[in-house]
């Protein structure tokens, strides 16, 4: 296991659209402060923001754990929520179960999970119907070099 250099866990509040994305903003500020390159920052923050919005929109409550190791940046989301019945289907660009309210917020166009996949180097999603979803994504630190 690579050595963990930094770790912070955030609580994500369901349905709180005004605050949604604040954790991702903080992650951006932390990475900027540590001098990471703009492409690594952008990829990490897209993953964090999309994952955070999914919790805000669908789950009851969730946590986002952000880690920096010697090898990668990791975003781990654990939520209590409805779960994803068919993960493969949810990964298809355009597939969405969003409500009109979510679409009015500018989300729920079926691009969230595809965006997370596109911007990460590894992605693992586990989900239990009625219980919740765990998402683990990593961005390798040498992949942009």
């Amino acid at each position, binding site marked *: 296991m690579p050595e963990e250099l930094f770790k912070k866990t955030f609580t994500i509040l369901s349905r709180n659209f005004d605050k949604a*994305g604040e954790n991702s903003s903080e992650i951006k500020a932390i990475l900027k402060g540590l001098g990471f390159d703009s492409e690594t920052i952008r990829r990490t923050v897209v993953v964090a923001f999309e994952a955070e919005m999914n919790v805000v929109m669908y789950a009851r409550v969730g946590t986002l754990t952000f880690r920096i190791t010697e090898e990668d940046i990791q975003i781990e989301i654990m939520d209590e929520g409805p779960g994803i019945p068919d993960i493969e289907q949810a990964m298809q660009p355009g597939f969405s179960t969003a409500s009109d309210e979510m679409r009015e917020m*500018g*989300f729920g166009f079926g*691009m969230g999970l595809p965006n997370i996949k596109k911007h990460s180097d590894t992605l693992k999603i586990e989900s239990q119907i009625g219980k919740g979803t765990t998402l683990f994504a990593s961005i390798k630190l040498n992949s942009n070099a």
Partner: protein
Amino acid sequence: MTLEQIKNLLGCQVLTPEFDLSNEVSTVLASDGMSEILAFHSPGALMVTGLTNIQSVRTADVADVRAIVYIRGKWIGEKTIELARQKEIPVLTTPLGMFDVCGILREHGMKGAM
């Protein structure tokens, strides 16, 4: 093209007069879907959108866009403008619709970032 030129072309009102509009932009991200904006890598692009909530500014910040143009003369809430100020993103609003905004910008040499 500079943001000042874009402002004049589109008849924009500037909601964040404290920011410099001499910055150049050459690409445009135009969508009401925030994940559509995030899907493409185009730092320094101009974001054109009809979505005026606070998430539009968060998305602009994540996507590293240079400025936001809100279309159809929509009302923009103070929370949206305040976050844009915090993130130092110039905010403009035009009475034109999405089709005309994109058409005018393209006629003047701007490229789509998508």
